[in-house]
C-alpha cells in the first residue's frame, strides 16, 4: 500500500512542479507583453534583434527551404510515378511548403540559432550580475532584454517564412524542370492553380506563433539560469529542446484550428 502511495506522491509532486513552472512562465510572458504597451519602448534593442533574427537567419532558412523543396519534388516523383500521378507534384510541393514545411523548418532553424543565442546571452548576463546591474541603472530588464526579443521574433519569423516559401517552391521547380523534365510554364500554372490565400496565411500565423515561442523559451531559460557556465549551458539546451517540441505541438494546434472541418 505504501509503495502505491509513494508512486502517487511522486507523480503528484511532478505534476505540481510542472504546473508551478507553467504558471511562472505565464507570468513571465504576461509581464513581457505588458512591457510592449507601457512606454518607454526599447526601440534600439528591438531594431538590433529584428536585424539579427530576420536578416542574419536568412541564409540558413533559405538553404533549408531550398533543399527541402528539391527533395520533396524528387520524393514525390518517385512515389507518385507508381500511380501515374506525377502531375500532382507541383501541388504537393507548394501546399507542403507553404502550410507545413516552410514555417516548421524555419521555426526549428531559428530555435537552434536564435533561441540558443538568446538563452546563452541572457543566461551569461544573469550569472555575471549584468541583469542586476540593469536594475541598479534604472532599467527594467524585462523591457530592455525580453520584450524587444519577443516582438522582434514574432514579427521577423513571418518574413523569413515568406522567403522560405518562395525558395522552397523554387527548389521544387528547379528539380521538376531541370531533372524530371517538366515543362516550366505548366509546372508554374499547376502551382498557382492549387495555391489559396489561406494556405499562405496559415503558414504565416504559424510562423508568428513559432517566433514568439522561440523567443519566449530563449529568454525565459536564460533569465532563470543559475550556477555559472554549466547553468548557462543547461539553459541553452533546455531552450532549444523545449522550443522545438513546442513548435511541433503548436503546429498541430494551429493546423487543427485552420483546417479542421
Amino acid at each position: 500500500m505504501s509503495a502505491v502511495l509513494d508512486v502517487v506522491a511522486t507523480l503528484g509532486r511532478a505534476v505540481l512542479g510542472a504546473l508551478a513552472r507553467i504558471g511562472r512562465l505565464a507570468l513571465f510572458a504576461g509581464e513581457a507583453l505588458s512591457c510592449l504597451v507601457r512606454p518607454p519602448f526599447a526601440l534600439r534593442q528591438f531594431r538590433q534583434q529584428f536585424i539579427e533574427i530576420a536578416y542574419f537567419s536568412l541564409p540558413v532558412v533559405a538553404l533549408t527551404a531550398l533543399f527541402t523543396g528539391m527533395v520533396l519534388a524528387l520524393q514525390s516523383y518517385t512515389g507518385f510515378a507508381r500511380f501515374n500521378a506525377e502531375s500532382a507534384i507541383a501541388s504537393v510541393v507548394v501546399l507542403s511548403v507553404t502550410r507545413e514545411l516552410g514555417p516548421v523548418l524555419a521555426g526549428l532553424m531559428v530555435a537552434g540559432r536564435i533561441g540558443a543565442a538568446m538563452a546563452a546571452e541572457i543566461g551569461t548576463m544573469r550569472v555575471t550580475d549584468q541583469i542586476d546591474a540593469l536594475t541598479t541603472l534604472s532599467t527594467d530588464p524585462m523591457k530592455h532584454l525580453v520584450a524587444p526579443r519577443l516582438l522582434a521574433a514574432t514579427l521577423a519569423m513571418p518574413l523569413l517564412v515568406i522567403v522560405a516559401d518562395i525558395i522552397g517552391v523554387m527548389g521544387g521547380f528547379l528539380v521538376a524542370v531541370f531533372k524530371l523534365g517538366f515543362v516550366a510554364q505548366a509546372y508554374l500554372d499547376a502551382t498557382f492553380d492549387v495555391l489559396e490565400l489561406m494556405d499562405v496565411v496559415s503558414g504565416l500565423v504559424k510562423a508568428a506563433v513559432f517566433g514568439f515561442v522561440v523567443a519566449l523559451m530563449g529568454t525565459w531559460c536564460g533569465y532563470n539560469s543559475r550556477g555559472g557556465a554549466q547553468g548557462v549551458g543547461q539553459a541553452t539546451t533546455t531552450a532549444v529542446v523545449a522550443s522545438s517540441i513546442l513548435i511541433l505541438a503548436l503546429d498541430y494546434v494551429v493546423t487543427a484550428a485552420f483546417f479542421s472541418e
Partner: protein
Amino acid sequence: MQDSPTPKIRLRGLRKAFGPKQVLDGVDLEVRARHSMVILGGSGSGKSVTIKCILGLIRPDAGVIEVDGADVTRLNRRDRAALMDRMGMLFQNGALFDSIPVWENVCFKLLAQRRISRAQARDHAAEALAQVGLAASVGDLSPAELSGGMQKRVALARAIAARPDIIFFDEPTTGLDPIMGAVIDGLIVDCVERLGATAVSITHDMASARRIGDDAAMIHGGRIVWTGSAEALGRTGNAMVDQFANGEREGPIRMELRK
C-alpha cells in the same frame, strides 16, 4: 562634516531565508548620511544579500528598510525606479555590459532615461573616465579588451556617472593586486567625497576597509554583531571582530569544515 539626525539608511529586523538556510536573521544597522559604512563578514554571512535587499534586487522575508526615514521595503514599480535613480552600485566583477562599448556603459543610466543625447554621452563618459584616471580613448574599447583593474575603474565611473547620493560597493578590491586595490580605494574615497554621497561597502579586505570606511559593522550568523569606527578594526576589543580583522585561526568564529 555635519551629521544628519536621521540616518541615510536604517535596517530593522531584516530577515531573509533561502530554503532552509536563514541568511539574514534580524539585521539592524544604521548608515549615517555622507559617511562611508563598511560591512565585514565571512563568506556566505549575508553581506551581499543585505545590500541586495536595500537595492530591491532581493525581497526580504521580514523587517524594515528605511532610506531618509521612509520605508522602502514594499515600493511600487514607479517609486522603486525613483529610488534607484538616487543609487549607484559597483558590482564585484564589474558587471559591465559586454555588448556595448565602454562609453555607453558609463552613460548607460543617463542614456536609458534620455537625460542626455548619444553625442553628449561621449563627452560625459570622457569626464567620468577622467575622474577614475582613464583616458577618453578607453571609451571606444569593448569591456572585454580591458584588464581587471581597468574594468573596476570603468564600473566605478558608471556607478558615479549619474551622480547618485547613495553608492554601494561589493568587494571593490577583490581580484586586484595590492597596488591596484589601493588605487581603486583612493578613487572610491575621492568620488564619494566629491559627490557628497553616502557609501556602503562590503569587503573581506581589512586594508581596504580601513582606507574607505568611516564606520564599520560586522555581520555574523545573520546578525550585526558589532558596529564602530573603521579605524579601530583589529583592536576593537570584540573578540569576533578582532579575530576576523587579524585573520586569526583560533577564536569565537569557527569555520565549518567537513571532515
